[in-house]
């Protein structure tokens, strides 16, 4: 009896605002699924620890500020390197031992790691999270006419898009990218050409993890820096990667942004379904194109 759901079409400017907000969320999906796709491509590992590593990126920014007074801008550089280094250690010490085994082992190991890391952070910092303020340069907002756009959110979209395009460029258009693509196809042969593939694998994992941490730093001022932030988003991001096609770089980027938009529209027309819509789409895509929209069939 208390139902005020607007089923009616919202006015165009309102819709525009919602699309923009969807794009902002899509930025996080794109950055995170990009890292996952890179890791899956070369290591053949479904990196379930990706959410925990995103969370560690946000915490790293918080530690830098709280312990040493190092602000947002340096954190944007330091945190990815620091968390990436942790990723490198994980690859060297643990993941390397799984090389050549079924995906399942990597999934279980990284899932276990995520539980441990998130549990430790929750034990120490609780679940409600820690505040991290927006850097002074990006405080405030612009009235776009159809909406009030916080400057920081605008920055998130522009920056993520830049990082995604730069990553795409590196992988598709440079020699390093050619090495990565070749090693994804046939690592043994690439190594027989004189490339230190194990090191390439380690660095690639580190880079994927660094991307997650970068997304974490970007998220810190918007969401609370919370031990749970990664667990909440990672399942959605996995769906995004599956929709885009496991291991497809372009697929990860495009479907990240696109699903942000679709989720945004769902929040207007049927908000109750906003956290399930992506899984519905995933199921549909898997039915029609099992390899994902941009995936190459095995």
């Amino acid at each position: 009896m208390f139902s005020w759901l607007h089923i009616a079409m919202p006015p165009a400017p309102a819709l525009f605002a919602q699309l923009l907000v969807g794009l902002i969320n899509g930025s996080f999906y794109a950055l995170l699924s990009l890292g996952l796709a890179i890791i899956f491509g070369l290591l053949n590992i479904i990196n379930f620890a990706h959410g925990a590593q995103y969370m560690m990126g946000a915490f790293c920014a918080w530690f830098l500020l709280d312990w040493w007074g190092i602000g947002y801008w340096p954190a944007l550089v330091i945190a990815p390197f620091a968390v990436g280094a942790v990723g490198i250690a994980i690859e060297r010490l643990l993941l390397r031992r799984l090389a050549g085994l079924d995906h399942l082992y990597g999934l279980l190991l990284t899932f276990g790691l995520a539980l441990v890391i998130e549990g430790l952070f929750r034990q120490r910092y609780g679940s409600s999270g820690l505040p991290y303020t927006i850097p002074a340069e990006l405080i405030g907002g612009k009235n776009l006419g159809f909406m009030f756009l916080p400057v920081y959110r605008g920055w998130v979209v522009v920056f993520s898009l830049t990082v995604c395009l730069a990553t795409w460029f590196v992988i598709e258009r440079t020699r390093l990218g050619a090495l990565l693509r070749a090693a994804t196809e046939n690592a043994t042969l690439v190594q027989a050409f004189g490339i230190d593939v194990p090191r390439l694998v380690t660095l690639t994992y580190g880079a994927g993890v660094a991307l997650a941490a970068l997304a974490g730093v970007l998220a810190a001022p918007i969401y609370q820096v919370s031990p749970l932030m990664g667990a909440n988003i990672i399942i959605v991001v996995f769906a995004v990667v599956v929709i885009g096609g496991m291991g497809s770089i372009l697929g990860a980027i495009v479907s990240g942004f696109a699903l942000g938009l679709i989720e945004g529209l769902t929040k207007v027309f049927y908000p109750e379904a906003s956290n399930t819509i992506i899984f519905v789409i995933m199921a549909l895509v898997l039915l029609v194109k099992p390899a994902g929209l941009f995936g190459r069939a095995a």
Partner: protein
Amino acid sequence: MPDLLAVDGLHAWYGESHVLHGVDFVVRQGELATLLGRNGAGKTTTLRAIMGIAGRRRGSVRFAGAELIGLPSNRIARMGVGYCPEERGVFASLSVEENLLLPPPVRPGGLSLDEIYTIFPNLLDRRRSQGTKLSGGEQQMLAIARILRTGATLLLLDEPTEGLAPVIVQQIGAVLRSLKERGFTMLLVEQNFRFAATVADRHYIVEHGRVIDAIDNAALAANEAKLHDYLGV
């Protein structure tokens, strides 16, 4: 001429299955030697074992005086060994030129890109195409071409003529001869001994994971009957 490659008592396993049972042979500096043998004799495995990419291995592989057993394949490549696999290994997600440029230069003295395009004009025309969109012959050219750039002095070539039309086989023969003139040392795996005879200095016969005979190319005609027996042709 000194031995560039000396293989001595080489054993190799794929998992539990013991495939090479003590392979012995040498390849001299500047010569083109072949490994001939029936299907499944262990020719490919020998090349892979030299390259350090066949499962477990034991014995000795000395290249330019250095022991290769125990080194990872990337270090072996960096010492100057170039490998052209039986399945060609052209990368689908790389363009022709990216495929060509993929193996890093390991020492000075490799061919320049221009020289390579002069030898393989087809590759120049198709350099922007996806690697696996090339014809079989072109893909074979590409697989050979990309190890010429690196400065490798020993080339391991696994059945470069397999499944190719006679004209293409002739072209490849010409390429191999010109490479020999340039001073490359080559170890060639072949099934087609008539083709092998047109390019090689010496042949080793592989059977059941061992080298059971060595025949100089000059003596090939005299040993034809024996060869037929070995190869079952």
